[in-house]
């Protein structure tokens, strides 16, 4: 598709690399948000590095193998994965101006995200009760910092999603609301990508 276009149009109109003149607002907004997401992932890389360095420093306390419950982690992963799917379908319905379908998919996304958060918070509470809180060892400090930061992102994503649903209901699917929705779905997919790193480094490698 694009190759035919490249041959057909003059070089100054070659797609990409700014060839088509100033990009539409939508592209500029999404690209700017993409840069933000990459910087957010860079911030997470610091927490990942801290965890990788400190994961063996248990100070005589519990190890990952003792405190992680892989069955819960699997359910959490499934929730987040399916919520990413429903978020994508919701973004698609919004693009097609199908307001009611968007609201259904947004509700699914919210419920799955809230389920993820509920399991995570009850895990954390159980660990703190079992004297495996963030103050117990360097390993647990790094664990709570990394996984807690991801959980905080999911929480803010849920707040943002509720706010977006309110905007769609009140303002309708106008172009600027659609641009905000696009940023939200980028954010939600990025959380899923970070979670893949978390389950691999923290849970799957830690609970062996």
């Amino acid at each position, binding site marked *: 598709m*694009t190759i035919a276009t490249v041959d057909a149009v003059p070089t100054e109109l070659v797609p990409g690399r700014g*060839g088509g003149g100033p990009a539409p607002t939508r592209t500029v907004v999404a690209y700017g948000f993409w840069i933000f997401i*990459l*910087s957010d992932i860079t911030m997470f890389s610091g927490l990942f590095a801290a965890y990788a360095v400190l994961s063996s420093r248990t*100070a005589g306390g519990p190890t990952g193998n003792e405190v992680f419950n*892989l069955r819960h982690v699997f359910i959490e992963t499934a929730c987040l994965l399916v919520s990413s799917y429903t978020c994508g379908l919701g973004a698609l319905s919004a693009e097609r101006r199908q307001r009611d379908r968007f609201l259904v998919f947004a509700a699914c996304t919210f419920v799955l995200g809230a389920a993820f958060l509920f399991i995570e918070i009850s895990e954390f509470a159980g660990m703190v009760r079992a004297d495996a809180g963030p103050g117990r060892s360097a390993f647990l400090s790094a664990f709570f910092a990394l996984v807690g930061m991801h959980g905080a992102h999911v929480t803010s994503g849920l707040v943002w999603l509720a706010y977006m649903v309110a905007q769609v209901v009140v303002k309708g699917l106008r172009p600027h609301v659609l641009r905000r929705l*696009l940023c939200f779905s980028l954010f939600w997919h990025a959380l899923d990508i970070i979670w893949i790193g978390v389950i691999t480094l923290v849970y799957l490698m830690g609970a062996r």
Partner: protein
Amino acid sequence: MDGDDRLYDRAPGVEHLESTANVLSYTVGLGFAILLTIASFVVSQTNFLWGPGVPVGLIVLAFAQIGVHLVFFLHLGSGPDNTNNILALAFGLMVVFLVITGSVWIIANLNANMMPMPVHLPR
């Protein structure tokens, strides 16, 4: 989106309405992601892979899954309209790689060169 869409740069996550391929893209992506997730858990919990190779296997599976997410959920492609997105991603990955491997490398060296500590020191 309109017809002159392809003359412009494309941003990640932007939908294209020309066909139903979008729902298909998300569904295929979900299928791959589920398969890779199950594979990760199986590799980690069984002796399917040779023991010392398990972390490598898990990292490979994680990268495969991140690739699936980028392509099927964020619609990143290799076309010229995606050059800016891929360049930004490549820079981000480079920083992530430097921070993580650099930290692990430096701290491993520090640990290796550390004087043996008496065990009874207060923690």
